[in-house]
């Protein structure tokens, strides 16, 4: 591991919903180019943690800090759930383009259109570009969400069980893409997953949430024993 810059610092972070503590005293440093897997049983607070990191939820205690400054970190987030109903009209291409807010004219510039085409290609959506996203399959939607998150070249990517509805081949393809960006462009990744083998294959670090506390370390230290203890006690 080279010494890269820290870009995200959680200090003694705690979150309590009324009468219901979720996690407590979580301190974590994420460096640029890190690939973290966040694991833990259903309802343990993984999504809540991600939303706290995104400033969508305010933590009860502690702080979330982006370094060197909030604005320097561009975040791509693929949420676990999104309400896209079957009648949702936009095509996959247009849905991805929504995230391009840099240029001020209503229509996309040529460079922006090329960028959308490129990401469509990278995520294997070329053939589906003109399909209304409301009519796309669950896995196709997931790919489109990932493409939207990536289109503006974020430096922090948060994936919340984004691979859960993908077939094994697609899963590997997309994570290979994420890994390429991780390696070549120092994209930092927080990957929430229940798929431990997948976490082992792709990430360097893990953060495990359990009802009794959190644990972190190098991915090699995430033994089966820990997984079972953490998830089944």
């Amino acid at each position, binding site marked *: 591991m080279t010494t890269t810059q820290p870009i995200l610092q959680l200090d003694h972070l705690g979150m309590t919903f009324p009468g219901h503590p979720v996690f407590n005293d979580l301190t974590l440093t994420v460096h640029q180019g890190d690939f973290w897997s966040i694991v833990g049983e259903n309802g343990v607070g993984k999504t809540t943690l991600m939303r706290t990191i*995104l*400033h*969508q939820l305010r933590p009860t205690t502690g702080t979330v800090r982006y370094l060197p400054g909030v604005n320097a970190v561009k*975040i*791509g*987030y693929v*949420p676990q759930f*999104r*309400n896209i109903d079957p*009648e949702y*009209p*936009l*095509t996959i291409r*247009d*849905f991805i383009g*929504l*995230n*391009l*807010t840099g*240029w*001020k004219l*209503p*229509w996309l510039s040529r460079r922006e259109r090329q960028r959308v085409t490129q990401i469509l290609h990278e995520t294997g959506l070329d053939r589906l570009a*003109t399909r*209304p996203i409301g009519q796309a399959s669950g896995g196709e939607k997931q790919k489109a969400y990932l493409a*939207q998150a990536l289109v503006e070249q974020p430096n922090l990517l948060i994936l919340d069980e984004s691979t859960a509805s993908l077939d094994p081949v697609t899963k590997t393809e997309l994570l290979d893409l994420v890994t390429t960006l991780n390696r070549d462009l120092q994209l930092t990744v927080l990957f929430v997953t229940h798929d431990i083998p997948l976490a082992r294959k792709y990430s360097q670090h893990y953060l495990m949430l359990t009802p009794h506390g959190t644990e972190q370390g190098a991915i090699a230290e995430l033994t089966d024993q820990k997984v079972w203890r953490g998830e089944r006690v």
Partner: protein
Amino acid sequence: MFSYEFMRNAFAAGTIIAIICGIMGVFVIARNMSFLTHTLSEIGFSGAAFGIFAGWSPLSGMLLFTVVSSVIVGQLSVRAERREAATSAISALFIGLGILFLSLANKNASYATNILFGSVIGISTHDVYQMLVLSILVLLVVLVIYRFLKFDSFDHTGAQVKGLWTNALSVTFLVLLALSVSVAAQIVGSLLIFILLTLPAATAKYFAHSVGGMMGLAILLALAGVWSGLVLSYVTNYPVSFFIAAIEAVFYFLALGWQHFQTAAK
């Protein structure tokens, strides 16, 4: 028909209204705000009645009421989940107030009918210019915030993650909507404005799959309804809002049927 000045004014006003409603309507539909639009139009009625009572123009009263209430409603919806019930209560209150103001103003029933159902005859050249200025203002603001508004309307989650000022956007949009409602009410009346602000865009959603495409189609559908409504009203002497409502509703149900047929065929 066009030899009458009032008809020329009505067509000019109708064209402006159709364009503004087509564009704003796409956002209204994407943001699921049909209900709120309905309420704003009732508030508009109340405002117009107040304008008459206070000796201003109905449009000024409408602008005042809809803009102020849109900011208030915006605050409500930003916070509370009980938006529908709260909005219903507000609209009941405003309809009541509208009736009160009208009776205080001592105007006869035909005045109320004009405000509620709109009128073709009442539109002066001055009104047309006023509407034009307001519409251009709305369109300019939409143009400036277009990409953000589009993102937030069509993917609220994504826009939030991006750190867009979604609350500020939401309030800005409501104010723009209030202005559009006031403009549109001039012809179709406050009772039926929400038709032009919702149905053409809701119809367009079934055929167009980009935001620009939906806007274009919604404008065309609104124009078709307004223009033919005006002609039919001129020929038959029946109220223009009836024709507009009927035509837009027919478009919408045809689209629904077509959609149904499409899915059945798959």
